[in-house]
């Protein structure tokens, strides 16, 4: 009933006690300070990293399934030194089958990736060229910086137009406005119609993140065909025929992604004798990233728990010393008529003043550390509001938990003995 105005004088008494033993209190609090600060700072760093990873995965589209061609393991004994033509990878046929037979497929986007010699004015560079459908820009999030993306019309007209990425522009060492400029890719001349942002780098590399320039797939096929010839290191020409480098499958809803990817996997396994493809599901990556984050949080929690435990023991130690020091005071209070429980409350409040004081300083430090990290390095940090509440709650909890034993010891003193104590 009258508990509230009963508690305040003891809070003041606790504060006064902390102030009287400044050095001792400060040293005792340090354990809590570092414990709490490390919880907040580590959570902020972890959250920053995982948000960055999640962001890059989300850019791939959570409704998407990414299929890409992959060179199968070399079948042995194919005579070294001889020129050869290897054929592998995804086919237009695969794309058609997926579109027509897998339920809930919204659309499929084929893409071919080839490195090609590119020239802009007097500069020459090997760029990574993605030949694709205009719908590519509908399924993958790539913000437009200037001009426009590819259009249906470009494909129908086999137009010689291209969209550069920011990185592509930089590779060409182009300082000026690129939209409207002409660049030479392989044997064709292309007009730059737009510039888009690159995929954000992060923990998970998107399969297309290395693209420098996009051209319509129909134009690419007409100009370059399906075969690329490379020369191996010992000078022999080596041909590769890959129909499609990549197929992006967009499902109608996120819930259909898992079933869709299983169906696609089964279908590809049936029609491809060798495993010359790879399936990436951003949603699965997302889940994995979230699971990783959970594991990280558990590890973090354990470390934080240990440091807070150490801090709590430090506080308990000091409180036990304080009980001995204040034996006479306890005797006086008991003689006046304080119940044991009131002595317990008094000492608990005293411990909480220490632990919450330490927790408060820890929160300040814990907020400052991520700021310094972000300022001095490029690492993003996100201070979670809940971590502040958590830290405060934990420090109060530690105060009660580790204050309980000294408080009970204080309360169980025999008042007659305590009064006689010098």
């Amino acid at each position, binding site marked *: 009933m*009258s508990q509230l105005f009963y508690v305040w004088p003891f809070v003041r008494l606790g504060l006064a006690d902390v102030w009287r033993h400044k050095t001792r209190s400060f040293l005792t609090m340090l354990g809590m300070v570092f414990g709490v600060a490390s919880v907040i700072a580590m959570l902020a760093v972890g959250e920053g990293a995982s948000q960055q990873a999640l962001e890059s995965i989300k850019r791939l589209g959570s409704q998407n399934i990414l299929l890409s061609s992959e060179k199968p393991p070399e079948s042995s004994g194919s005579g070294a030194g001889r020129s050869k033509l290897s054929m592998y990878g995804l086919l237009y046929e695969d794309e058609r089958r997926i579109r027509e037979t897998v339920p809930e497929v919204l659309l499929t986007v084929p893409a071919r990736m080839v490195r090609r010699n590119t020239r802009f004015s007097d500069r020459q560079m090997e760029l990574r060229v993605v030949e694709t459908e205009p719908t590519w820009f509908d399924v993958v999030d790539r913000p437009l910086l200037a001009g426009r993306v590819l259009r249906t019309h470009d494909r129908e007209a086999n137009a010689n137009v291209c969209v550069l990425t920011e990185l592509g522009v930089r590779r060409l060492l182009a300082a000026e406005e690129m939209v409207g400029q002409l660049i030479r890719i392989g044997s064709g001349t292309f007009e730059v119609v737009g510039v888009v942002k690159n995929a954000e780098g992060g923990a998970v590399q998107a399969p297309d993140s290395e693209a420098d320039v996009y051209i319509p797939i129909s134009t690419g096929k007409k100009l370059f065909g399906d075969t690329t010839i490379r020369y191996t290191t010992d000078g022999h020409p080596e041909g590769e025929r890959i129909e499609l480098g990549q197929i992006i499958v967009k499902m109608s809803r996120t819930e259909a992604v898992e079933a869709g990817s299983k169906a696609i996997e089964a279908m590809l396994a049936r029609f491809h004798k060798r495993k010359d493809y790879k399936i990436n599901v951003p949603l699965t990556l997302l889940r994995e990233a979230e699971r990783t984050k959970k594991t990280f949080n558990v590890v973090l929690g354990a470390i934080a728990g240990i440091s807070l435990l150490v801090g709590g023991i430090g506080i308990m130690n000091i409180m036990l010393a304080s009980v001995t020091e204040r034996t006479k005071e306890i005797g006086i209070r008991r003689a006046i008529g304080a119940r044991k429980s009131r002595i317990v409350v008094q000492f608990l409040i005293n411990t909480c003043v220490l632990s919450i004081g330490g927790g408060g300083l820890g929160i300040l430090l814990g907020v400052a550390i991520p700021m310094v990290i972000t300022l001095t390095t490029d690492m993003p940090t996100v201070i979670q509001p809940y971590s502040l509440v958590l830290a405060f709650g934990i420090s109060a909890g530690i105060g009660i938990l580790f204050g309980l034993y000294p408080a009970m010891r204080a309360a169980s003193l025999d008042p007659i003995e305590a009064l006689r104590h010098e």
Partner: protein
Amino acid sequence: MSVSQMEEVVRLEQVKRHYHVGDEMVHALDGVSFSIKKGGYWAIMGQSGSGKSTMLNILGCLDRPSSGAYWLNGVNVAEMDDNELSDHRLKNLGFIFQSFHLIPQLTVRENIEVPLLYLGLPAHERSAKANELAERVGMAHRLKHLPTELSGGQRQRVAVARALANDPAVLLADEPTGNLDTTTSVQIMGLFQELHEQGKTVIIVTHEPDIANYAKSRIVLKDGRVATITEATI
């Protein structure tokens, strides 16, 4: 009979208190009976080893009799548990100690407020009461001081103010002048005299006849028993 019982603040019946010291049984109190009426001014005397300290602890509800009964303000203390004993002290007793026993880190005001705090009085009532009590013992000008800044006599006045805070049925003083010089002792005993005249029941436990002489009635303990009782006729 019933009228006098109504007026009895303290009543002991065959109170015994024994301890085990090693294998031996020590009978600190060995069947003590007496009663004290409301408004009485008593001295409890005895040599060291007479059971005086044990008597003080039992009268002060810090200890319980091994057998027998002790009624303080009409309730038998012998059957109480620790919480009930604490509450009983809080409501009915005012302690005054030889070495004052003020809490060193609290100011005079805060020391006087300690019992009021446990009684659950809100801050403004505590403050008003502390002013009034300090005034009563002549310490109103020292409310913000710490005990270490006061003389012995001043400390004992503060202790008296604290003992009066709960308006107790009995003021129990243990050698209240034991740490004071003669002049100050006289002043403090004057304060007790005033309180007695205001109708307080005062019990002083002492071994000094000079101090005991201030009281109107007297109990002398010897070897854990009552040797003599001299009760003033009011």
